[in-house]
């Protein structure tokens, strides 16, 4: 599978400025304090897996990175640009950050190919022919070029999620965000999506994944972030995190996850 994307040998480039830099970020939903002093730097090419119990703020965290949610305190810099109310800065950031959702969120009234070419044509101002060639290239890489003319509703869940990945990649983003990409899938389809993500990780893409797939985390993550009740509780390499968890909360979480599997 990894042969599908051209492999880049070097992973995280720690010498370059960070792709994402979060400094004491706070967010409230009404009275609910959902992000508490979250600080996290993600280097270019780094793969970070965010895990934690439901309601721990992990989805909110990555949704703040492309401002689907706004933060109320602290600073977030993406690709060197600070996220503020400035619409131009936001447009620039969204062009560079791709996102894959739990519920796919493909556009059901457009074909798979149109889903993939819409943003390159209208945001990147790419000629239609070129955008279609690019889309077919990525649909090839996620192994569903034969579905290009179909509507999303005609595909299986796993196929839809792979289209969603291809759609995000067609914008040639520098950073990819995955918000529980396999949580809405039947067990037999999880593997095909994870394989696609592993192949993508092998290309050196900067990735932040919210996921419960610990196998995936072990395989590709440079670092694992464990969140609980809106704060980052523990952070380290997969080996440290899974084999010698330091905090009681992580130990408890891991024991629950492992029992569930």
């Amino acid at each position, binding site marked *: 599978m990894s042969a599908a994307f051209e492999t880049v040998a070097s992973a995280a480039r720690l010498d370059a400025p960070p792709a994402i830099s979060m400094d004491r970020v706070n967010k409230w939903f009404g009275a609910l304090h959902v992000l508490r002093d979250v600080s996290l730097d993600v280097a270019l090419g780094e793969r970070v897996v965010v895990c934690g119990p439901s309601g721990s703020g992990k989805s909110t965290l990555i949704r703040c990175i*492309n401002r*689907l949610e706004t933060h109320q305190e602290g600073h977030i810099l993406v690709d060197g640009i600070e996220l503020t109310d400035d619409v131009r800065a936001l*447009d620039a950031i*969204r*062009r560079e*950050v*791709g*996102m894959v*959702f739990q*519920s796919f*969120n*493909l*556009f*059901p*009234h*457009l074909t798979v190919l149109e889903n993939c070419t*819409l*943003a390159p044509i*209208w*945001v990147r101002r790419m000629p239609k022919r070129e955008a279609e060639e690019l889309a077919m290239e990525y649909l090839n890489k996620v192994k569903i070029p034969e579905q290009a003319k179909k*509507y*999303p*509703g*005609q595909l299986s869940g796993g196929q839809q999620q792979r289209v969603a990945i291809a*759609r*995000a990649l067609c*914008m040639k983003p520098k950073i990819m965000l995955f918000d529980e990409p396999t949580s809405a899938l039947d067990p037999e389809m999880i593997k095909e999506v994870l394989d696609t993500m592993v192949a993508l990780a092998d290309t050196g893409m900067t990735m932040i994944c919210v996921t419960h797939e610990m196998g995936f985390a072990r395989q590709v993550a440079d670092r694992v972030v464990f969140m609980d009740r809106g704060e980052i509780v523990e952070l380290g390499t997969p080996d440290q995190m899974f084999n010698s968890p330091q905090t009681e909360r992580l130990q408890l979480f891991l024991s629950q996850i492992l029992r569930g599997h």
Partner: protein
Amino acid sequence: MPSDTTLTPATIPAPPVESRRAPISVVGPVAWMRANLFSGWLSTAITLALGYLIITRLISFVDWAFINAIWSVPVNATNQPDTSACRAARGVGACWAVVTEKHRFILFGTYPFEEHWRPALACVIFVALYIVSAMRRFWRKELALIWIAALTAIGVLMWGGVLGMPFVPQERWGGLPITLILSTFGLAFAFPLAIMVALGRRSRMPAIKAICVLYVELIRGVPLISLLFMASVMFPLFLPEGMNIDKLLRAQIAIILFAGAYLAEVVRAGLQALPKGQYEAADALGLSYWNKTGFIILPQALRMVIPPLVNTFIGFFKDTSLVLIIGIFDLLTAGKTAIVEPAWQGFGVEVYITIGLIYFVFCFAMSKYSQGLETELNQHRRR
């Protein structure tokens, strides 16, 4: 479960099974009738009683409308229609002669008689415009040009004053063209207005949102009749001396504003029904507000609300008849006026049936078309 059965359904070839046809006592018209019309003695009695009523009513209607009907009447010495035959047949046969005799007045009102070909052609252009707009292969940018050309042609035909056609002031227009003008312009302008207002109501900018809410609530809060009165009576009082805006145009604007408010709420329902994920996916891809709205949100939102949209369209097509209270001669007013003449007094039923049929043809066409459109546009939902 016995250990020797392995659960691999795909590998076991299914044994060939002859499929048998369902017995005639379960399917087919006979079975349907037995199940729905004659399932018991009570059901049978009701079926027979209703059947008797329907058939006798139908027979007497056919007698009245066709067999005993009078289709034309002779003209007497003073060149007036002699309606004595109609009066004699009252209650027994319909007097379609009133329609034959008066159809041009009903259709075109007080428009000069020898120029009737002009409003007639205008109506044909309207219908052609509807047909062209209904066909998906014409859904391109050029369609806007076709509309502009058609509406200009209609304006030239109705007003005249050029190409050797005598000028006809708007006060003399009447009948079907008025109904078509009011509803076509009304909906053609109200629909885009409604989309803007619906989007505005969901805007994050408080001023825009407030204006849109105010507009919808104000207009929806008053009856159409009072808006028409305001347009025809009060509005001119606010205009400077000597300045006058055509009465039809004022009524037209009142209808556009009214329909716009109602349609805006229908469109807003569609915007709200769309899953939040669609907005988020478009945002995450970096699409601009207008690209997001034009390519992702509206195409899906409008498809969802086709049934209530058409419902509102049909309602407004018929509501244009309310302009009769401010003295504009639409189809219904023309029909009403046609039977004021002493010779034809008392033959309202025939005239109203005819006008009803004309309205029905237009509304039924809209309804049928929207059903087809719905299935066609929602193909992507089927697997």
